[in-house]
């Protein structure tokens, strides 16, 4: 019986539900010191004298380290990915990318509130925080720039004084005759739409611990990271050590959503302190630090125009976007280029003109956050299509349907180069069918029955495509133990996605064993020699296929050895539930574990030349990305006099190819949608004009809770990907991509007769009242 496609209960859950999870802050390293940081209170300032005498005099304080001290030992940080531009991308969009390195601790200048300035190492975090209060740093404030559009204006304060302006990235693209299409169009709509800044805010904040092995001097690092192998490589390079002498482990990790993908100053500083002091050192980030200093997401403004014929067929799209990178251009094209390649999504549009400018500002750096540039693209295009539908007096779902790429057009070449340098080709999917299925489930009438002059009901749509399963590779090793247990080692670590279950299902399927006999080990740089990590909706595609290949190789190995043991040919053997049998000889059976045991070096019957164990390693290197897609439909109620928006129902039609574990897939999608609802209605990172963070705690940065969850309806349309043996597509980010656009569309629909246009979120009650008021004043000259 196939184990793929079955909602196997998560093997992770029993431990976690019993409170037996062991997260970074649960680590008890012998004699470990703890760290607190003095963080910049200024968005932009020169650093003057630092007086740590009082802090150092406090009993229990071991070290106070500042940027002048680290400058001698630690080169400023640069990430290779920020500079990577494939040749085909260069030809197609002529990107200009500038990167200035980020010091682990700045010696001269701070460039955002929350930037670490001084590291205090003490016997406890309490003492370290006491000592931070005693460190006196002279700051000389400099003019700051917070807003990306403002940063790009002439004369704006410079975030990086070596540059002549604040532009970190620009690129543009044109296909087809955009001007002619606009000139010939029956209808043109043009609007500005902003995706406001958000914070990923996983339940577990960041954290790093490090210690030096007294036996061999190797460095052991534990980090709440998405990417243990990347962190290992990064530390090797910046600490000038062999990667083999650094082991990075991610213990249980409580969510990440992109925020734990970047390598941070703290990731470097904690191991640095452990090596310098010769003692274990731990830093567990608190929530205030997390909101102020971990990477944030979104923060794009799009000026988008659509040219359409009188039937609503889109002839051309023109979009000019500005993105806020924060104080450092950490990851280069990753997010802004994602926005570009996902702008047209499922739509068949002839002409496209696109330009993107990315500015550095005196705010915390931005980085991928669940969706990574896609929600921003979808907010712009989907909102613009809603405006088009309104102008045509047409149903927004119909206008979308008229422009969708049809299944007969698959594989569909978009004419765009994807970020990995290959041509962007949608491998499979049926977008019209996805939209039809979603629309069937909306039940608008049920909610209209509750409507009144005061309580308005609205429906909004968002359709997206998502390139998933990006390379370059992932390694898997599968081994069968003499006990019959199958061990799967993967470079993809888990932050709660359920990999120990889904990858076990993949291995069980390929081997012919029960899921319960498979143990998945990840999150350890020592588990497999190379790995990448869990990000960008890639694990099932890349690690999943690596596991499947490795498991298949082990199966073949086992059958070859078993053939000798059973005096049969390998092709006559089959494996079911962990037992090998010979077709047509019901009594000739052998458990897989017995084959592994047969290979023990002490077995006199061991055939000469037999493999040392039943184990195989596979590195899966995917080709171009595979394309998942989804349709989101939100039904909302808006209370006119108070502006309160309630999401009543959320319909999702989803295509992530072959589904390995439907319950886990649904959980991923619903979790993503909840984050999207948070962004649509509640969450916003706000800086004031001087760059002070105003939403630095959970009373002001409002995550949605279970209390804000609407009723959900999910339907899957599985079009297997032809690009990988498992036929899977990624799904980790999809849920978060559509809700801001769908909910904004629904609110606009509910208030259509008032002429309200939603240009940005979050749609809290006060903003909704402002929208109603400004629509009313626009209507009465």
């Amino acid at each position: 019986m196939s184990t793929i496609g079955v909602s196997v209960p998560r093997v992770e859950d029993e431990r976690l539900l019993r409170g037996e999870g062991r997260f970074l802050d649960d680590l008890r390293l012998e004699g470990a010191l703890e760290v607190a940081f003095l963080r910049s209170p200024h968005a932009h300032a020169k650093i003057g004298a630092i007086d740590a005498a009082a802090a150092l005099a406090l009993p229990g304080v071991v070290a106070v380290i500042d940027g002048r001290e680290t400058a001698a030992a630690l080169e400023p940080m640069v990430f290779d990915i920020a500079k990577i531009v494939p040749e085909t991308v260069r030809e197609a969009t002529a990107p200009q990318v500038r990167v200035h390195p980020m010091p682990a601790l700045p010696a001269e200048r701070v460039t955002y509130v929350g930037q670490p300035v001084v590291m205090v190492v003490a016997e406890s975090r309490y003492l370290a925080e006491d000592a931070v209060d005693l460190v006196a740093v002279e700051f000389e404030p400099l003019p700051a720039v917070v807003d990306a559009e403002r940063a790009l204006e002439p004369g704006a304060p410079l975030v990086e004084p070596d540059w002549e302006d604040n532009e970190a990235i620009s690129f543009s693209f044109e296909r087809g005759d955009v001007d002619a299409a606009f000139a010939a169009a029956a209808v043109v709509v043009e609007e500005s739409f902003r995706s406001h800044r958000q914070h990923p805010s996983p339940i577990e904040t960041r954290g790093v611990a490090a210690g030096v092995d007294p036996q061999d001097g190797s460095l052991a690092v534990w980090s709440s990271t998405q990417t243990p192998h990347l962190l290992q490589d990064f530390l090797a390079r910046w600490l000038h050590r062999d990667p083999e002498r650094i082991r990075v482990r991610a213990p249980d990790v409580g969510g990440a959503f992109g925020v734990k993908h970047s390598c941070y100053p703290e990731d470097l500083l904690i191991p640095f302190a452990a090596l310098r002091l010769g003692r274990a050192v731990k830093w567990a980030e608190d929530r205030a630090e997390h909101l102020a200093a971990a990477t944030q997401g979104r923060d794009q403004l799009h000026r988008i125009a659509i040219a359409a014929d009188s039937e609503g067929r889109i002839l051309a799209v023109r979009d000019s976007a500005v993105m806020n990178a924060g104080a450092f251009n950490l990851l280069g094209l990753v997010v802004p280029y994602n926005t570009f390649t996902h702008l047209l999504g499922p739509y068949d549009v002839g002409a496209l003109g696109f330009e993107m400018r990315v500015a550095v500002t005196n705010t915390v750096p931005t980085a991928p956050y669940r969706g990574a540039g896609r929600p921003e693209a979808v907010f712009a295009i989907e909102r613009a299509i809603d405006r088009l539908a309104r102008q045509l007096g047409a149903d927004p779902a119909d206008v979308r349907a008229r422009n969708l790429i049809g299944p007969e057009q698959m594989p569909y070449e978009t004419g765009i180069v994807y970020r990995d340098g290959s041509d962007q080709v949608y491998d499979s999917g049926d977008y019209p069918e996805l939209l039809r299925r979603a629309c069937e489930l909306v039940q608008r009438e049920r909610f209209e029955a509750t409507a009144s002059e005061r309580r308005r009901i609205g429906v909004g749509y968002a359709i997206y495509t998502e390139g998933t399963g990006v390379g370059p590779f992932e390694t898997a090793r599968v081994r069968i133990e003499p006990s019959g247990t199958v061990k799967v080692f993967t470079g993809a670590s888990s932050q709660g996605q359920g990999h120990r279950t889904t990858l076990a299902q993949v291995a069980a399927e390929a081997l012919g064993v029960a899921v319960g006999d498979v143990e998945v080990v990840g999150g350890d740089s020592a588990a497999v020699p190379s790995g990448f990590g869990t990000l960008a909706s890639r694990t099932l595609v890349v690690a999943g296929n690596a596991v499947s290949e490795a498991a298949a190789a082990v199966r073949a190995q086992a059958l070859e050895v078993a053939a000798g043991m059973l005096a049969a040919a390998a092709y006559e053997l089959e494996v079911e539930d962990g037992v090998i049998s010979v077709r047509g000889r019901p009594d000739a059976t052998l458990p897989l574990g017995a084959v592994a045991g047969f290979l023990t070096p002490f077995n006199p019957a061991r055939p000469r030349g037999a493999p040392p164990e039943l184990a195989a390693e596979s590195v899966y290197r995917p080709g171009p990305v595979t394309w998942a897609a989804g349709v989101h439909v939100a039904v909302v109620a808006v209370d006119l006099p108070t502006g309160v928006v309630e999401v009543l129902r959320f319909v999702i039609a989803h295509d992530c190819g072959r589904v390995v574990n439907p319950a886990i897939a649904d959980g991923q999608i619903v979790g993503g949608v909840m984050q999207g609802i948070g962004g649509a209605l509640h969450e916003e990172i706000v800086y004031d004009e001087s760059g002070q963070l105003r939403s630095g705690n959970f009373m002001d940065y409002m995550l949605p809770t279970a209390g804000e969850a609407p009723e959900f309806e999910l339907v899957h349309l599985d079009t297997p990907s032809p690009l990988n043996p498992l036929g899977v597509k990624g799904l980790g980010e999809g849920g978060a991509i559509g809700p801001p656009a769908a909910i904004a569309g629904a609110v606009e629909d509910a208030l259509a007769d008032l002429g309200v246009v939603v240009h940005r979120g979050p749609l809290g009650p006060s903003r909704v009242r402002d929208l109603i008021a400004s629509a009313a004043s626009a209507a009465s000259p």
Partner: protein
Amino acid sequence: MKPAAFDYHAPESVDEALELLADEAVESRVLAGGQSLVPMMNFRLAVPEALVDLRRIEELRYLRIGADGALEVGARTTQAELLRDPAVTTGWPLLHDGVTHIGHPQVRSRGTVCGSLAHHDPHGELPALALALGATITVAGPAGRRQIAAEDFFVSFYEVALEPGELVVEARFPAPPAGSGWSFREIARRHGDFALVGVACLVTPAQTRLVVFGAAERPLLLADPSEVAAAVRPLDDLHASAEYRRQVAVLLAGEALAEARERADG
């Protein structure tokens, strides 16, 4: 987000607590449920030298109906205990309904009724409820006990009419007379948040007590919705504009009064 060092006391009687609080050389704070004080200490916005925890004072752990029919709530009684008492649900439905808007079950299991009154967040539900219900707050101090009407108790943001060394020991909520009606309304960003703005209203055969909260430095007791627009002094913040609070206060006051009158008639 670790508090600065502090001394911790868990006295077993009110007298013992008062003795600790009487030491003027030490800046002490009273700890009840800790749902506001502890986060403030973790942010080091509050840096008391000592905490006087009420958790062992059994004499303050009660919820009872007094001789005159008033609901008497001791300083250790949690919001969850109040919600669980059927006498409260039937006799003080406004209090019951209002308290359900405080935080989530986890918060109400720890948070105390008297602690919320003494803390006085003007966006909080309990100060408004105390004012609407004509509650009296009993405080104990070096000079003995005194009673303060809710009208006089709430001074300004996080400030109440407690003298140094005094401790809130009880809140008394008179029983609403027969034929009373009530209403409680608030607008919050999410379930369980402090109100952007809210209204608690009690209509008795003798009087109308209309309280608007979240729209000034303390809850405001008014007689009629027509007074609201002029009486409120709302602030702008991340979550709502002052103008929003003013408009919605007026709206909610009208709706609450109408609902309370309807319940009074019914």
